[in-house]
């Protein structure tokens, strides 16, 4: 029944069904009715993780290592518990910056570096190659087994068929063709393949059902439930050993778990379905438990099948990797065997399709295009439509990858069990881990760190896993493994630096991660990032804090013609898609691009992002730069771009400063308020004193008409004196208020200072004589004229002299008034030999209402405003006023005025 032709036709039919699903998915997507936009399809598409390695290999590994296959699935479960925390961040970053592959992600994070993108691509290509070949091997082996079904030849070794009958080659070519049809129908700005995702999700269902079917068949039809299988197995000591994990070291278990944790993010195909093809990051919430649930379901029957197979084929030499297929065949269930084969085909094709799409995108965007741009940039920018070129590169890359996988399969692959090959690929993909996880959480990680880390990790991986595998295949001398290179024991690839007791994979993982993370940290800490790197680091690390994703990239400042940008985009992503993109942009911004005189930085950024989706961030940057005039921002300006965190710190400093300033201003206001109150209370006090005495004397005069005329005259004198005092006080207060509010009328003129001082002394001469005060004048006539308000200066002079007169009123004394010339201008000194002023009072004496030793001397005449007014006047006229005094020796009040000629 299962003739080769029948199997072949069923397989082709199945692939056609897949294609139909993909086509349907794509056409629905084009109409805007996505069938994959839901969390279930998303979770199922993630299950592309389960390749034929899972499908056939898990049983093989379980048959020799018991539960040892499980860390490969527990690791992703653990990573997905963190999914909302880590994966969502990666998804958000990728969506925001149109990142389309793992190489693009790393290169964009570290300053849009072409070098890094290329390196990641090469590592992915080299590392994943064996994995692709593993799928080919699985399909061709399972096909061979199925074809030879009939019982007669199940046990014979696989034939090394001639080139033309080689199944694997046909499988490879078929898959390549299929992938090209799926993945490279057109160049898209988002690089999403909804049709492909639909097909992958369908495949995930098929392989799960097939595996569950065979599991149920083995467990409940061949045997009588899982209990019986394990019971029978426990009878055999060699199987009973599989019930424990004694054969697996703790380090190995932990190592595998961590490896799988990293791989679920870093494998190119997982990045493709999990990040690039993600339609909505909210889908991740359900996927965090649905995907682990899928993993659990597909692993549920692994142990029963493995044990069952070992029991059934005990003693016969059948590869445990083929138990899944061999048991239905040996039990004569042809249809189930066919279904299992289709399930295996699903697992293999899903992996190959997604992987080749992911890697071909990397090869075209991060390897070939940058090289073309660099080598033949002029030529390239002249050619008309380049989206065809991009597609061509990708198609060629797909064929190349599949054929390389096939070559590896023919040359090396057959020497290895499925699981080992898969783990080698995992270890290669894990090298991206530090650069990715470090890059999204650690702002300080630099390009140099990522570059050296990747190179070191990849180098160690090659040395500890790939070279020895070549030795095992006989390509190079086996002595490399047994004795080390050139007989240097310490460098044996499986026991590097004498590290023993680990399996090869864990051993390699340890050393490669040691080198990778070590270099990554060391070189990141000791290298200076460029401004672009720092900018990108901030964009990645703080992706959730970007308010408007369009406003952060400050690296385009120049201007470009709109039509240049449009035609650039047209050439790479096709006319229709380019126009659609620009139309959407114009609508969102409410612009009309046709009337826009030139593209602003925002439109330039938009174009760069549009192109980045099709060809990678680094290449897009170069292309856009070729169109923008005055491209980029000068270095000094770049250096000014401060990290957001620094800005936050600065803001908080500024806030604190502003707060302190406000507090200070508040204090000042309070002080002013207090001073105003004080001023008011003093002034009312000063007003009340004369008023009280006026009122008292007026009342006496009013109530007692019999007062003697002499007495009456005395009282009236007092009344006049007090009223004068009141008037003076009010005038002074008014003067002061005017001075302080700058509403004083100034009459600036040039006059002779000695003359003015003489005039002033004459006015008080009488008073001085009355009080027994001798006046000596030294006026240095011939002094150049001074400039100022004559009347006000006179007021100052009289005020100073009358102050001196007041302090010497009772004792009499010597008053000397001097006018002289100093460097500052004209100097007027009014010196007395009165009691003097205490030092602590000298500073305060010019304050309003300050009266030195007022109580002691009981000075009734001063109201304390004269000096304050004098100070205001002198200072307004650009002079200076001060007092020199010593207690008991007298005081000298001095003021200066600028000379006319000094100006």
């Amino acid at each position, binding site marked *: 029944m299962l003739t080769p032709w029948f199997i072949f036709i069923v397989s082709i039919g199945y692939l056609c069904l897949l294609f139909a699903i993909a086509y349907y998915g794509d056409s629905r997507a084009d109409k805007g009715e996505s069938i994959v936009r839901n969390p279930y399809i998303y979770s199922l598409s993630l299950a592309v993780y389960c390749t034929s390695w899972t499908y056939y290999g898990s049983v093989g590994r379980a048959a020799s290592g018991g539960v040892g296959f499980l860390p490969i699935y527990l690791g992703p*479960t653990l990573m997905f518990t963190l999914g909302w925390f880590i994966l969502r961040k990666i998804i958000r970053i990728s969506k925001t910056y149109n990142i389309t592959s793992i190489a693009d992600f790393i290169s964009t994070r570290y300053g849009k570096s072409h070098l890094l993108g290329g390196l990641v691509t090469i590592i992915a290509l080299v590392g994943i190659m064996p994995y692709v070949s593993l799928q080919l091997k699985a399909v061709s082996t399972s096909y061979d087994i199925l074809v030879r079904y009939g019982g007669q030849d199940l046990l014979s070794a696989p034939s090394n068929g001639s080139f033309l009958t080689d199944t694997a080659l046909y499988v490879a070519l078929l898959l390549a063709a299929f992938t090209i049809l799926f993945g490279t129908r057109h160049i898209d700005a988002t690089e999403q393949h909804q049709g492909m995702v639909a097909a992958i999700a369908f495949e995930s269902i098929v392989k799960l059902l097939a595996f569950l079917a065979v599991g149920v068949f083995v467990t409940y039809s061949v045997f009588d439930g899982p209990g019986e299988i394990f019971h029978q197995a426990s009878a055999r000591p060699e199987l009973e050993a599989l019930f424990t994990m004694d054969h697996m070291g*703790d380090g190995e*278990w932990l190592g595998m778990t961590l490896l799988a944790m990293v791989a679920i993010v870093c494998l190119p195909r997982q990045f493709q379905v999990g990040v690039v093809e993600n339609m909505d990051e909210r889908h991740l919430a359900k996927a965090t438990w649905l995907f682990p649930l899928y993993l659990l379901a597909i692993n549920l029957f692994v142990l029963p099948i493995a044990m069952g197979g070992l029991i059934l084929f005990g003693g016969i030499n059948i590869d445990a990797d083929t138990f899944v297929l061999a048991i239905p065949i040996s039990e004569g269930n042809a249809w189930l065997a066919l279904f299992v084969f289709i399930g295996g085909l699903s697992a293999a094709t899903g992996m190959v399709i997604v992987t080749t799409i992911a890697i071909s995108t990397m090869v075209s965007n991060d390897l070939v295009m940058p090289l073309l741009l660099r080598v033949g940039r002029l030529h390239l920018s002249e050619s008309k439509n380049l989206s065809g070129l991009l597609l061509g590169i990708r198609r060629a890359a797909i064929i190349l990858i599949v054929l390389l996988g096939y070559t590896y399969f023919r040359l090396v692959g057959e020497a290895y069990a499925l699981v080992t090959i898969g783990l080698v690929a995992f270890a290669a993909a894990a090298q991206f881990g530090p650069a990715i996880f470090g890059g999204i959480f650690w702002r300080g990680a630099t390009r140099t760190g990522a570059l050296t880390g990747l190179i070191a990790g990849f180098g160690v991986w090659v040395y500890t896993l790939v070279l020895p595998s070549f030795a095992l295949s006989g390509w190079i001398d086996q002595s490399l493994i047994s004795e080390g290179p050139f007989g240097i024991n310490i460098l044996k690839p499986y026991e590097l630096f004498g590290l023993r007791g680990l399996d090869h994979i864990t051993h390699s993982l340890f050393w490669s991660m040691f080198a990778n993370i070590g270099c990554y940290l060391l070189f990141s800490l000791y290298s200076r990032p460029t401004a672009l790197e720092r900018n990108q680091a901030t964009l990645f690390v703080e992706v959730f804090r970007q308010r408007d994703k369009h406003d952060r990239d400050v690296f385009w400042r120049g201007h470009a013609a709109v039509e240049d940008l449009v035609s650039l985009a047209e050439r790479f992503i096709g006319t229709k898609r380019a126009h659609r993109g620009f139309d959407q942009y114009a609508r969102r911004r409410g612009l009309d691009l046709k009337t826009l005189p030139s593209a602003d930085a925002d439109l330039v950024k938009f174009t760069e992002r549009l192109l980045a989706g099709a060809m990678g961030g680094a290449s897009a940057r170069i292309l856009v730069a070729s169109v923008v005039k005055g491209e980029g921002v000068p270095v000094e300006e770049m250096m000014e771009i401060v990290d957001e965190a620094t800005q936050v710190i600065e803001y908080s400093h500024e806030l604190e400063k502003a707060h302190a300033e406000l507090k200070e201003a508040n204090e000042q206001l309070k002080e002013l308020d207090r001073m105003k109150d004080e001023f008011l209370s003093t002034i009312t006090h000063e007003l009340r004193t004369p008023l009280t005495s006026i009122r008292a004397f007026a009342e006496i005069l009013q109530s007692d008409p019999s007062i003697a005329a002499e007495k009456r005259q005395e009282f009236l004198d007092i009344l006049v004196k007090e009223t004068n005092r009141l008037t003076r006080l009010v005038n002074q207060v008014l003067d002061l208020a005017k001075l302080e509010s700058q509403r004083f009328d100034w009459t600036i003129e040039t006059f002779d200072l000695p003359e003015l001082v003489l005039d002033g002394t004459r006015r008080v001469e009488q008073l001085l004589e009355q009080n027994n005060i001798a006046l000596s004048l030294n006026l240095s006539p011939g002094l150049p004229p001074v400039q100022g308000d004559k009347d006000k200066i006179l007021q100052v002079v009289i005020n100073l002299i009358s102050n001196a007169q007041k302090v010497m009123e009772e004792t009499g004394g010597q008053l000397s008034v001097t006018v002289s010339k100093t460097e500052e201008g004209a100097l007027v000194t009014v010196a007395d030999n009165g009691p003097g002023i205490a030092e602590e009072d000298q500073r305060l004496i010019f304050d309003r209402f300050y009266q030195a030793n007022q109580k002691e001397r009981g000075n009734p005449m001063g109201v304390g405003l004269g000096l304050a007014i004098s100070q205001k006047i002198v200072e307004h006229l650009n002079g200076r006023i001060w007092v020199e005094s010593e207690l008991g020796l007298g005081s000298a009040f001095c003021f200066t005025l600028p000379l006319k000629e000094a100006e």
Partner: protein
Amino acid sequence: MNRPGPTREKTIALFLLGLILFNPPFLNIFNASAQASLFQIPVLYIYIFSAWIFLIVLVARAAKSAEPPEPSRQKDKPKTHPPRDAA
């Protein structure tokens, strides 16, 4: 703030729980003897799978506790960005 999905603290706590459940030395407790079995199934197997399903249930509950509005109902709508969340 409307936080869709589990909180970061919950996420990390569950991760640590899983890390401990799925690794030695915890695992070694159930690795006592090949004879130990439940319904004739080795306890080690039973333990790993039940711990696994236990963790999945916890993660599902955490994801559900603050799940965003059913996304399938708003297919065809242009992609809207979920509320910002400083993760």
